[in-house]
C-alpha cells in the first residue's frame, strides 16, 4: 500500500540536455580517486601507505572517531598518491587501477537471521556505511546512534538528474537485500518515496513503507519528504540513503564483494549527446565525458546536478554519492542592460518582464551567470512559494547568519540539509549563498551542541 504525498509549492527547472535513455559502458579509467570532502564530518586515518597494493573493497582508511567505520577502495590497484592540502589534511586518494580487477571478499551473512549488531559491523567494515547519511547535520551517519526512521527518495525532481527508475531497473534483488538489512537497524520504518508506484523498481520491495509523491521540485528531495512524512525533532536521528547506493550495498550483502559500479547520467546543454554510462565510483570524468563530446569551449562541469553538485573538471573524478554529471556553459560574460530588458531565455519565479511563466514546459539553456550581484535580503514571501517544508526559510537563514543558536534550533535547522535550500537559492533575488549559509549554520550547531 502506498500513501500519496502531493507537493504544490516548488518550481521545476527544465533544462536542455536531459540524458537519453541508453547506457554505454564507459572505458575504464587508469586512475580512480576518492575525494575525501565527499565524506562530510569524517576525519580520515590511513590504513595503508602510499604505494601499497589494494584490492577492490579493501579498507584504505578509517574514521578517526569510530575505528570500526572503514572506507574501501573502489578498485584494485596501487595507491599511487595521497594528495594533501593545508595542515596535511588529506584531500584525495588516487589509485592506479589494475587491468584485472581483484576483489576483497567478506563472509556473507544470512540477512533474515542476522541481528542488528552483526549487520551494523558488517556494513561498517564493508565500506558501505558511508552511503548512509544522517540528519540533523547532513553528514555520514554516526554509527553510535539509532535512527528513528530511514528515508529513501526514488522520486527525482532535480534538474537533469539521473532517472532512478531507469538506472535501477533490474536491480530489485540488490535493493531488497539492502532495505532488509537497513530495516533491522531502526525500530522505525524504512520510507521509500517513488513517483510511479508501478514502474518503480521499489514497487514490489518488501519491508518498506512506500509513498507516492507528486509535484514540482523539491518534491523529490528527501528533506521535503521527511518533513511531511515524519519530521525530525530535536534529539532525533534519521538516516537517508540514495537509491543507487542501495544497489552497491545490496550487491555487497548478496555476494560479499564491494562493486563500485554504477550507472550515471551525463547531462547538460554543453554535452553533445547526453546519455547514461556505466562506470565506477572515482572514475576520471574524461573517460565518459569525451565519449559523448562537448559543445562548448567554456563550460562548467558539475559532479551532481546543477543545484547541489560540486564544481569539477574533466580530469576530476566521479564523486562517491553522485549518479549525475552535468556540463553547462559558463556565463562569465556581460549582458547589456540585462537588468531591465525583457527576458525570454532564462527561468524566473516572477513576471517582472520575465516570461518563463508563459511556457512552464519550455526547456532552458541556463549558464552559470548569477544574473545580478549579491545584495542584502530585500524581498519577502518569494522563498515560501518554492519551499514546501513547514519552516520559515528567510528567518532560518537569517538566524544562521547571525549565529543565533536558539533561534536556529527553534526554527527547524535540525530538519534541513543545504540541498533543501537549493531552490530558494536559485530564485533568490539578492543572490545570497543559501546552501553555504545553512551548511555553516549546521556546522556551528554541531560544534556547539553535537
Amino acid at each position, binding site marked *: 500500500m502506498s500513501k500519496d504525498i502531493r507537493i504544490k509549492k516548488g518550481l521545476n527547472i527544465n533544462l536542455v540536455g536531459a540524458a537519453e535513455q541508453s547506457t554505454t559502458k564507459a572505458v575504464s579509467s587508469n586512475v580512480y580517486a576518492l575525494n575525501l570532502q565527499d565524506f562530510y564530518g569524517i576525519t580520515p586515518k590511513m590504513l595503508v601507505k602510499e604505494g601499497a597494493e589494494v584490492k577492490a573493497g579493501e579498507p584504505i582508511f578509517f574514521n578517526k572517531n569510530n575505528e570500526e567505520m572503514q572506507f574501501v577502495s573502489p578498485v584494485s590497484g596501487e595507491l599511487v598518491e595521497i594528495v594533501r592540502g593545508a595542515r596535511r589534511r588529506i584531500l584525495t586518494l588516487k589509485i592506479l587501477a589494475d587491468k584485472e580487477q581483484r576483489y576483497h571478499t567478506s563472509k556473507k551473512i544470512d540477512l533474515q537471521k542476522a541481528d542488528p549488531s552483526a549487520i551494523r559491523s558488517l556494513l561498517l567494515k564493508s565500506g558501505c556505511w558511508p552511503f548512509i547519511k544522517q540528519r540533523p547535520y547532513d553528514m555520514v551517519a554516526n554509527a553510535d546512534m*539509532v535512527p528513528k526512521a530511514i528515508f529513501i527518495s526514488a522520486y527525482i525532481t532535480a534538474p537533469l538528474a539521473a532517472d532512478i527508475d531507469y538506472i535501477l531497473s533490474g536491480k530489485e534483488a540488490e535493493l531488497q537485500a539492502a532495505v532488509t538489512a537497513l530495516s533491522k537497524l531502526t525500530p522505525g520504518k524504512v520510507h521509500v518515496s517513488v513517483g510511479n508506484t508501478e514502474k518503480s523498481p521499489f514497487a514490489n520491495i518488501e519491508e518498506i513503507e512506500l509513498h507516492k509523491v507528486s509535484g514540482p521540485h523539491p518534491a523529490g528531495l528527501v528533506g521535503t519528504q521527511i518533513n511531511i512524512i515524519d519530521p525530525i525533532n530535536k534529539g532525533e*536521528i534519521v538516516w537517508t540513503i540514495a537509491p543507487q547506493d542501495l544497489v552497491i550495498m545490496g550487491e555487497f550483502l548478496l555476494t560479499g564483494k564491494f562493486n563500485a559500479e554504477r550507472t550515471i547520467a551525463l547531462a547538460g546543454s554543453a554535452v553533445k549527446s547526453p546519455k547514461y554510462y556505466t562506470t565506477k565510483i572515482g572514475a576520471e570524468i574524461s573517460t565518459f565525458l569525451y565519449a559523448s563530446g562537448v559543445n562548448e569551449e567554456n563550460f562548467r562541469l558539475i559532479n551532481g546536478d546543477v543545484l547541489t553538485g560540486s564544481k569539477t573538471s574533466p580530469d576530476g573524478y566521479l564523486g562517491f554519492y553522485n549518479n549525475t554529471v552535468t556540463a553547462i556553459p559558463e556565463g562569465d560574460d556581460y549582458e547589456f542592460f540585462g537588468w531591465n530588458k525583457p527576458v525570454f531565455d532564462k527561468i524566473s519565479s516572477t513576471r517582472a518582464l520575465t516570461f518563463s511563466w508563459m511556457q512552464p514546459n519550455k526547456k532552458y539553456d541556463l549558464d552559470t551567470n548569477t544574473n545580478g*550581484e549579491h*545584495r542584502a535580503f530585500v524581498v519577502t514571501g518569494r522563498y515560501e512559494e518554492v519551499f514546501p517544508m513547514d519552516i520559515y526559510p528567510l528567518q532560518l537563514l537569517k538566524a544562521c547568519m547571525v549565529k543565533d543558536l536558539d533561534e536556529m534550533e527553534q526554527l527547524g535547522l535540525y530538519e534541513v540539509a543545504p540541498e533543501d535550500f537549493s531552490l530558494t537559492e536559485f530564485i533568490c533575488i539578492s543572490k545570497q549563498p543559501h546552501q553555504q549559509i545553512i551548511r555553516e549554520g549546521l556546522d556551528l550547531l554541531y560544534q556547539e551542541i553535537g
Partner: protein
Amino acid sequence: MGIKEKLHQLKLKYQGKKMAPAFNALHTFLYTPNETTHSGGHVRAADDLKRTMNTVIMALIPCLLFGIFNAGYQHYSAINGFPADFSVMEHFITWDNFWLGAITVLPLVIVSYGVGLIIEFIFAVIKGHEVEEGYLVTGMLVPLIVPIDTPLWMLAVAVAFGVIIGKEVFGGTGMNILNPALTIRAFLFFAYPTWMSGDKVWVHGAKEGLTKAGSTDAISGETILGYLAQGNTSDFTYSLSDMFFGFIPGSVGETSTFLILLGGLFLVFSKIASWRIMLSAVLGALAMGLIFNGIVEFGWIPEYSKFYGLMQFDFWKHLIVGGLAFGIVYMATDPVTGSQTNRGKWIYGFLIGFLSVMIRVFNPGYPEGVFLAILLMNVFAPTIDHYVIRGNVRRRMKRLKNATILPKISDGKAKELKVETV
C-alpha cells in the same frame, strides 16, 4: 575594442580600489556583471534586485506623468476656473499643462535622485560595499508624495535626513526599519508644516499669492480631505470620476486612483509586491470607514463636531481621495519595512488601512493619515512577525513531546533494541 571590453578593463583597473563601488554601480547599470556562481547551486534565476526595483519604477511612471499634467491642469484651472465641458484631450493633456508640470515636478525628481544617490554612493565608497538599488524606488516615490511647491532646498534636506538617519545608519538597503520615502515625508511634515498642509500648497503658485483671472482673489486649492475636515459635508466641486481618475488637488503623484490601481495590478501580476498587504489594507480602510459611517448613522456624533465632516464621508470614498491608495500600493508593500511572513502581511496591511482612516479623521492638524499609519506599522511589523513565527516554533515544540529519542549503541542498551527490532 567595444565598450564592453573597455569597461571590463576599467573594472579590473579599479578592482580593490576605494572608488570601485562607484564605478561598479555605473558599470552594472549598463551591463549585468560577468559574475558566475561560486557556491551552492550552479545556476540562478533571471531576477535580481535591479530588475525588481525597476519594475516598481515602471509601475510609478504613469503616476509621475499624470502628476505632471495634473500640476498644470490644477494651476490653470485655479486661475481660469474649471472647464465646464471637461475633456481629457482638450483640457488635460495639453502642452501648457505639460510644460508647467515639467518645470515644477521634474526638479523635484532631479533633486530627490541627485541628493539621495550621492549619499548612497558616498556611503558605499566609505563602507566598501556595492551601491544597493533601494534608493531607485525611494527617489521616485519622494517627488510623488510631496506638495507641488515644496522648495527644493527643503526636499534636499529631507532626503539627506531620510537616507542617512532612516536608512544608512541601520546598514543600508535591506536593514532599515522605517520606509525611507515616508521618513522623508514625515521629516518634511514635522519640520515645515506650513509648506505641507493647508489649502495653499496643493496648487502651483497658490503659496506665492497668484490671483484668479480677472479678480483679486488669491487662488487656492484644497484637497477634498481638507475640505471635509473643516466640517463641510457636501457640495464638492469634484465629481466621483474626478476623484477616481485623479483630476483633483493633492500631492504630485497620489491623485489618480485609477493609475495607482493599474500600477498595483501590474505589481501583483509581476509578483513584485504583496497582494496580501494591498488587499488587507483595503479591507482595513473599508472597515474603519464603515465604523465611522455607523457612528454617524446612529447619531452618536453631533453635526457640529469637527470630526463630523470626515466621519460621514462614504466609507469607500476614502480609498479614492488622498494618499491612501498610493500608500497602500507603493509604500505599505515595501518588503524591507513591512511584515515578512505571509500571515503577518494580512495583519500588517489590515492595520495600515484601519489606522490610516482613523488618523485621517482624528488628526486635527492635517487630514491625512496614511504615512503615519505606515510608519507606525513599520515599527510594529517585527512584532507581528515575531508572534507569527512563534506559532511555527510552538508547533515544533509540541511535536517534540512525542519525539523518538533512541539510546546510543554505546550506552549498552543496544540489547533492548535488538529485542524490539528483530
